[in-house]
């Protein structure tokens, strides 16, 4: 078991871990946009690690080059797909992107200069 194999195995297993993380995000996040966010980022990082794993073991350089091209095309496809799906979701009116709510700020404990919330500053 040479060090190449150990590194390759570690890369493969961590890639798998990122894929699992992406799927957990897909199932557990509340709306389309956060799911897209989780999926696109985690899955593409996982794909990179899985492309890198076999590339470590390969002697001919063109195979590693092919794996690199596969990953980069995957990145491009995921980027454009994510944008288009989100765009369609917004414009079909089914989903509003959630406006971020200001954090709850109790007026008594809120000191104007250190509190970053806009609502808090407007109350004092």
């Amino acid at each position: 078991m040479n060090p190449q194999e150990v590194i390759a195995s570690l890369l493969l297993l961590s890639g798998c871990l990122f894929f699992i993380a992406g799927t957990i995000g897909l199932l557990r996040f509340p709306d389309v946009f956060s799911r897209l966010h989780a999926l696109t980022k985690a899955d593409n990082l996982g794909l990179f690690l899985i492309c890198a794993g076999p590339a470590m073991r390969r002697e001919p350089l063109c195979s590693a080059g092919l794996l690199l091209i596969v990953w980069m095309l995957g990145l491009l496809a995921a980027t454009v797909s994510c944008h288009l799906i989100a765009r369609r979701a917004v414009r079909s009116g089914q989903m509003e992107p959630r406006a971020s709510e200001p954090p709850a700020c109790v007026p008594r404990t809120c000191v104007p200069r250190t509190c970053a919330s806009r609502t808090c500053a407007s109350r004092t």
Partner: protein
Amino acid sequence: MRAPDMRVPDMRVPDMIGLGIDAVLALAIVWLALQTVRSRDLFKAMLMFVVFGLLMSLAWARLHAPDLALAEAAIGAGITGALLLVTWRRLQADGHEPADSEHPPLPLWLRLPTAGGASMLVASIGWVALELPATPGTAGELAWQRIDDIGVSNPVTAVLLGFRAYDTLLEMAVVLAAWLGARAVAIELRPGALPGPAYAEVPLVGALLSLVVPISILVAVYLLQAGGNAPGGAFQGGAVLAAGGVLLCLTGRLEAAAQTSGLERVLLVLGLVVFSLAGLLVMASGGAMLALPGLWAIYLVETALLLSIAITLVLLFAAAPGLRRAS
């Protein structure tokens, strides 16, 4: 390339994991097929079907059939998926409310015995196929022994363009007939299945096109060239080229033209004509019909086939007589 090994090896741990992979794939494929048929929501059924195509490609890969995996990926997952989604969009735009299935399901006493009967039929065929003893002297074995006469080492290409070249010739005729049939029907439908130029302004799509379309041309030519010794060939290359064309249609770079241009007509019939001419010339000069004389002839015919398949698939997708660059 060694001949396929018919013996069942002893089970070791990697083989058991392989069995696990196959089991998960098989269950997922069957479940997807059930969901495709049973879904009341049309979009859900369509997407299940596309995912089914993806998993079928994996199944072909597991069965050591990369040629079929290539074809399934290009056609089943790519072009068919785009076709179904565009159709869904058209239905929505026309106000057909595709969300509800209109037909009530068949009664249970009809469905269960049919499903049970079909499953038992498939299971018994599979069991018989697995139990058959390997008989010597079958056509596959003879072809495998004589494969060097054709000049290519990929057995799929040798069969498609050498041993069973007549089938491929007739398949090209079928493809052309499909195109003509589609034109005959589509005359009555509303033209303009393709998006207008407004969609061309979405920013990321331009970058996608500028990278993917040239690469699809490159990959198509690569698959054509690789078809001699490795999985690939005219059909897979043609499907990839068609996918690039479909992408151009979907993003508004190509729009429908009212007439089939001269170049498109030539490309549509090129595969059939070149293949037939090659076969007839060989016969005229003394050989058997369609016994292509060498590797160069195979590549020539495959190039013509690739161009014909690509243009036919793109024009079928666009449902238009021709295409031209969007103004």
